[in-house]
């Protein structure tokens, strides 16, 4: 594994976001959506509590909608324009390319997440929150974004069409979130054995993110997101290898 190749590919990819309006459209939509839902859906003020729980709890749903918009172009655009032939005949391994592209998208999402810092200032101005909890919340949200991105990157490699990549990533992401959602679990728990219900729930981003966003750092949750990222990126490399020339 050549680290500098990963770095160069990441750099190129990242500058690509800012060469087009994609980056600005994404960041503004992300900030509008998080802001809107924190104050109006999460009732930030009415709750009267100095924390960012309403802000973080909405993240899985915002990511389901917005992350596929970032990940859809990662590979399908390369395949459509034929530049994948160029990339894959440079002295770069598939996994280096997969990681470079993934890190670019992850770093970009991290930037969008970071730009929510005024909210953190606000809550510190209004009260005295537990800042440790808020930091783990950001960390958990960032990890979860990585999971969504890895799913989206892999899906994007399966098609040349960005719209298809978007819709498929959205559906797969939704499955990973919904499997921990109350209504879905209630549906299963009425007839399925508890082991199965727990298994389904343990696959959900929601279950693992909830604990982190409340300030509980459990290594199992960290390990969960890390392995989701790894497994999907591994699949991504396999798909790129298999479909690059189609």
């Amino acid at each position, binding site marked *: 594994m050549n680290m500098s190749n990963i770095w160069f590919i990441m*750099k*190129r990819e990242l500058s690509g976001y800012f060469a087009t309006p994609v980056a600005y459209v994404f960041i503004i939509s992300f900030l509008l959506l998080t802001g809107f839902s924190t104050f109006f859906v999460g009732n930030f003020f009415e709750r009267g509590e100095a924390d960012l729980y309403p802000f973080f709890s909405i993240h899985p749903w915002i990511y389901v909608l917005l992350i596929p918009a970032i990940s859809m172009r990662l590979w399908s655009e390369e395949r459509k324009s034929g530049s994948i032939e160029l990339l894959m005949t440079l*002295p770069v391994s598939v996994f280096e390319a997969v990681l470079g592209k993934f890190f670019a998208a992850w770093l970009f999402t991290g930037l969008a997440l970071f730009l929510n810092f005024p909210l953190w200032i606000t809550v510190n101005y209004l009260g005295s929150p537990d800042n440790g909890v808020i930091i783990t919340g950001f960390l958990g949200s960032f990890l979860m974004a990585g999971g969504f991105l890895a799913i989206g990157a892999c899906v994007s490699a399966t098609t040349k069409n960005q719209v298809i990549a978007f819709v498929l990533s959205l559906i797969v992401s939704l499955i990973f979130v919904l499997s921990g959602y109350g209504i879905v679990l209630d549906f299963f728990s009425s007839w399925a054995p508890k082991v199965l219900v727990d298994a389904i729930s343990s696959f959900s981003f929601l279950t693992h993110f909830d604990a982190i966003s409340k300030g509980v750092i459990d290594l199992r949750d960290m390990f969960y997101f890390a392995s989701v990222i790894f497994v999907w990126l591994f699949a991504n490399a396999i798909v790129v290898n298999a479909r690059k*020339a189609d």
Partner: protein
Amino acid sequence: MTLRIEIDNLAKHFGEIKAVDGVSFSVNKGEVLGFLGPNGAGKSTTMKMVTGFLTPTSGTVRVCGHDVLEDPISVKANLGYLPEGAPAYADMTPDGFLRFIADVRGLSGAAKQYAVEHAAERAQIKHVMFQPIETLSKGYKRRVGLAQAILHNPPVLILDEPTDGLDPNQKHEVRTLINEMSHDKAIIISTHILEEVHALCHRNVLIANGKLKFDGTPNELEAMSRYHNAVCVAVANVDNDKVLSFLKSLAYIASVEELSGTRGFRVYPQQGKQITAELSQSIRDNNWDISSLHAENGRLDEVFRTITMGSNK
């Protein structure tokens, strides 16, 4: 002679379709190999296997001694490749694009700066270096692709239709560039523009339906033409029938064809021999005036058609 590219019994099957079917040839340092064949013959597929983009169904490819399956990174490091259609990152500028390629090729600092400037100069794209690639014309995009391929001064160049879609001036420039680089590199160019066979290539390989049909010099390729060493001759002030019967009577002439208008005759020699001098002497022995006389080398388009159409049957 240094062997730079060795292709042995290479095959690629897509399901039932044999896109490339047991092709073997090699390219030496200092050689420009023209890779000919009709569209869909398997030229691009072969090149994609040589560059490590496609995995062969069977057979081996070695570039500068490295096997493409065992050590693809070394193969790719020794290659410059212009894929068909010269794909690039459309939203980048040629400057940013070439710098990215230089980074990945392991160039940095002054070496990187020199490589980018030198490649841009040779490909003649210096004045468009800061315009997004998507806004460039087809000819410039092709040259950006070419600059990318030659950037790291690789020992082996693989160029898939480098002059496709260029105007005659641009074609000339690209050919000049390839000729300049040919002495210390091994170059494969694919083309279906037959004039490039003489303008560029030291050797030709012709494939059709995935199979190798010819491997030899441009002159050898021409010699396969039925027009090879045929002579067009016109005689002034003599009745056509008289000339025709005289030409037919000559022992070294296999057949005679009357050309339309007053352009005279095309005579085909026995066993493809050179007969220009003999013929000229025979006509003058009759005290006839020759108004024009020229020998043909052979017609590549006719050879191309014969070889590639014959394989469809």
